């Protein structure tokens, strides 16, 4: 089962996607955290800056309200015309509620000498005390302007205070006295409201009097009136003194950074400073980040789950299909199309597999059909067929006809070296096979039979099978019958020719002797009859010779001795041999002038060709005519033309001139002599000598027969060459 392979693929995809998303989550978390921290910090700085401003405004407003209130009191006292004890007491009494509200530390009313003439809170010995030595009292009395003192130790309160003074002036602008309010720095914090503005991030606020280098007040009120520490002891003060109005300071206690913001109150020479620990930002940020982490984790798990489900859904049909294919291959289920209801890639793949499988099944069926056909041909062939291994030449298979032919059973033939079947006295098997394997070639083998004797077979071979599994297929055709028939025919031809020639020898010989007159006893009346008998015995001899020649030419048994011949000599020989025939016909033979040409031909057969052509020309020429022989030479050929002045060849007959037993006029055979085989033999002989033959003829004007023969023997041809049927069938025959 190959399923694990596919599972591994799914796991790979899963790991890849999950790994990528995890990396993405971590990266984005980290970037978000950085961005959030930076944003928070910016937000905090902005918020603290605003809070600090608010605190400044708040302090300003608180002081302003109190100044306003004191100014109102001063105005009411001025209406009474002078600053007297009873007037002061009445004023205090009428405004006690407001006084307690704005100045819990109490107010003091002084006359124009700076002597206390009224108080809202009774302090033993304070009335009648002269405060004109206090710089801010002195300044208010002399300038007639309201002011706020620096932090000072209350003389009677014995605590750090600031004093707000409002002068009492009549209509002429003369100073009648002062109304002074006391703010106890340790008890009455001006910044509670400011501190409460920090949105839950606790900050510490300080109000510094930079002129006098003391704390005015702070979130911790005990710092009031305390001197400011040295720069060396306080990084905050060092930063402030160096002119910074905001920044970060390392806090060695918390290990984090502290943010400070400073705003000036120039008319009082104060600075309001807020200090906030940044660690509080991270404390607020961490829950947000961990929340995000949990959400990311949940999202990641959901993604993984979805992926597993999706991949399983995608891979399961694939695995199922692979499972089915495996079962089909192992033969556990029939080969059939796999059903799948999918249109995605899996569906595509399975569909393609189904098509491939169908095509292969179709091919297998076709192959099977062809195989069956070949098998039946193999089994039913009238030829014996054996398959041999191409290397060992052992028999792989033999068809029924082969077992019938040789007598061995197929089982006994199988695995046997084919060479064992060869009867003795034959070339070795590889040589025979090489001959049998050539295209259109064959060889003859004598093969041993199981029960003695041998059978002659004509063997053709072919290489069959796949390239890596070559086999030799040998077709063995039993030619015993054919060989017997050939032998019979040869015997017949031999016997007939002998049996015919023997009586002809006596008849012809006797007639020839009688006609020659050597016996001196020839009756005059018998002479013409004896002459006819002699001529016809000659014709019979010629016919027998021609028939034997035709037989040899057809069987390819004619042996030629091709050699270089002197053409002049050959023509003279021919004229000599035909001299008597020509003389009898009163025809003159005219040879060309000697030219020294040489041809390649068999001397006996060339003479036969010449004799045939010349005797034909003489035979068909009228008395007194000339038969001319002309020659034309090219580099490779010599053309010989026999020209007669006879009656020519009828057009209708011209196509049949070189056919056997063809004569234009059937009676001509008897009238003129001849067997009707002469030109057919001439044609075959010329071709066997690598020549060509043809003619042209105009009825009534004579004929010209030409023969071309090579001046040199062409390479790669070896005599003898057997005559073969015509291929072009025109008047020219090569």
């Amino acid at each position, binding site marked *: 089962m190959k399923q694990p392979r596919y599972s591994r693929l799914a796991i790979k995809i899963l790991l890849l996607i999950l790994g990528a998303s995890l990396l993405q989550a971590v990266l984005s978390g980290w970037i978000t955290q950085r961005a959030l921290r930076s944003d928070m910090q910016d937000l905090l700085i902005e918020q603290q800056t605003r809070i600090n401003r608010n605190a400044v405004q708040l302090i300003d407003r608180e002081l302003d309200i109190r100044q306003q209130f004191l100014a109102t009191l001063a105005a009411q006292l001025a209406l009474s015309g002078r600053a007297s004890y009873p007037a002061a007491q009445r004023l205090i009494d009428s405004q006690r509620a407001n006084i307690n509200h704005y100045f819990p530390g109490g107010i003091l009313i002084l006359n124009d000498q700076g002597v206390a003439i009224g108080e809202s809170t009774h302090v033993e010995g304070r009335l009648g005390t002269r405060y004109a030595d206090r710089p801010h009292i002195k300044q208010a009395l002399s300038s007639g302007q309201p002011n706020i003192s620096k932090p000072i130790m209350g003389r009677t309160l014995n605590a750090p205070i600031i004093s707000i003074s409002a002068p009492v002036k009549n209509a002429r602008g003369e100073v009648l006295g002062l109304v002074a309010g006391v703010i106890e720095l340790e008890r009455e914090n001006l910044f509670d409201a400011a501190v409460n503005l920090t949105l839950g991030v606790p900050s510490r606020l300080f109000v510094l009097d930079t002129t006098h280098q003391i704390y005015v007040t702070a979130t911790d009120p005990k710092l009031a009136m305390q001197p400011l520490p040295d720069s060396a002891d306080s990084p905050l003060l060092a930063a402030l003194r160096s002119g910074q109005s905001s920044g970060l300071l390392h806090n060695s206690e918390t290990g984090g950074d502290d943010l400070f913001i400073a705003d000036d109150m120039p008319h009082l020479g104060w600075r309001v400073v807020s200090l906030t620990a940044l660690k509080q930002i991270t404390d607020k940020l961490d829950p947000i980040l961990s929340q995000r982490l949990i959400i990311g984790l949940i999202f990641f798990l959901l993604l993984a789950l979805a992926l597993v489900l999706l991949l399983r859904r995608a891979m399961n049909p694939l695995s199922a299909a692979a499972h089915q294919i495996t079962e089909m291959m192992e033969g556990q289920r029939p080969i059939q199309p796999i059903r799948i209801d999918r249109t995605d890639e899996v569906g595509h793949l399975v569909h393609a597999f189904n098509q491939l499988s169908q095509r292969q099944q179709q091919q297998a069926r076709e192959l099977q059909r062809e195989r069956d056909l070949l098998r039946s041909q193999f089994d039913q062939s009238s030829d014996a067929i054996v398959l041999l291994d191409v290397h060992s030449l052992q028999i792989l298979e033999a068809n029924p006809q082969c077992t019938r032919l040789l007598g061995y059973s197929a089982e006994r033939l199988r695995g046997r070296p084919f060479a064992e079947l060869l009867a003795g006295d034959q070339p070795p098997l590889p040589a025979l096979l090489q001959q049998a394997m050539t295209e259109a070639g064959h060889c003859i083998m004598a093969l041993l039979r199981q029960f003695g004797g041998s059978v002659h077979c004509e063997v053709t071979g072919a290489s069959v099978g796949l390239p890596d599994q070559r086999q030799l297929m040998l077709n063995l055709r039993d030619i015993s019958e054919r060989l017997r028939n050939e032998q019979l025919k040869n015997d017949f031809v031999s016997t007939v*020719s002998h049996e*015919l*020639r023997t009586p002809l*020898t*006596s008849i012809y010989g*006797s007639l020839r002797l009688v006609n020659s007159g*050597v*016996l001196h006893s020839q009756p005059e009346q018998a002479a013409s009859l004896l002459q006819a008998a002699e001529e016809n015995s000659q014709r019979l001899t010629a016919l027998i010779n021609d028939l*034997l020649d035709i037989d040899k030419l057809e069987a390819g048994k004619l*042996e030629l001795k091709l050699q270089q011949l002197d053409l002049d000599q050959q023509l003279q020989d021919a004229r000599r041999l035909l001299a008597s025939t020509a003389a009898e016909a009163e025809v003159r033979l005219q040879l060309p002038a000697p030219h020294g040409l040489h041809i390649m031909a068999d001397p006996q057969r060339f003479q036969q060709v010449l004799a045939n052509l010349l005797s034909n020309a003489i035979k068909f020429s009228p008395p007194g005519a000339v038969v001319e022989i002309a020659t034309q030479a090219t580099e490779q050929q010599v053309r010989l033309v026999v020209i007669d002045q006879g009656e020519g060849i009828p057009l209708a007959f011209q196509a049949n001139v070189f056919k056997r037993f063809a004569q234009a006029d059937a009676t001509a055979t008897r009238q003129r002599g001849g067997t009707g085989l002469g030109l057919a033999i001439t044609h075959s002989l010329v071709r066997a000598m690598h020549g060509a033959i043809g003619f042209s003829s105009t009825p009534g004007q004579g004929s010209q027969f030409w023969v071309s023969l090579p001046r040199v023997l062409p390479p790669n041809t070896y005599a003898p060459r057997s005559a073969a049927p015509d291929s072009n069938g025109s008047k020219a025959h090569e």
Partner: protein
Amino acid sequence: MNKLERIMHIEDDPSIQEVARVALEIVGGFTVKSCDSGAEGLAQAPAFAPQLVLLDVMMPGMDGPQTLIELQKLSCMQGVPVVFMTAKAQTQEVSGYHNLGAAGVIIKPFDPMTLSEQITEIWNSWHE
């Protein structure tokens, strides 16, 4: 070189015997001894002492080639040319006769008017 005078002709066909005899005796002027079979030829040879033997190939009993072999065993036949006279004259047959030791082959049917010339030609080339 002696002049050719005595020819022995071994031939089973009496009419061919006769034609050849007339051709050789009357046309050629030779002395001819005709024998009907190889056996007779072998028997007559010592007495006749032929200078040349004309031998038919196909004969009942002992055929031409066999007769040739037997003749060659006779002391009187040493150096005497034997010429086959046959209708069986295909190329390979002719060369077979030569291999047996034949001096020449005359093909049937022969021309009786030129037979003597042919034989004289063979005689001359045999003695060259």
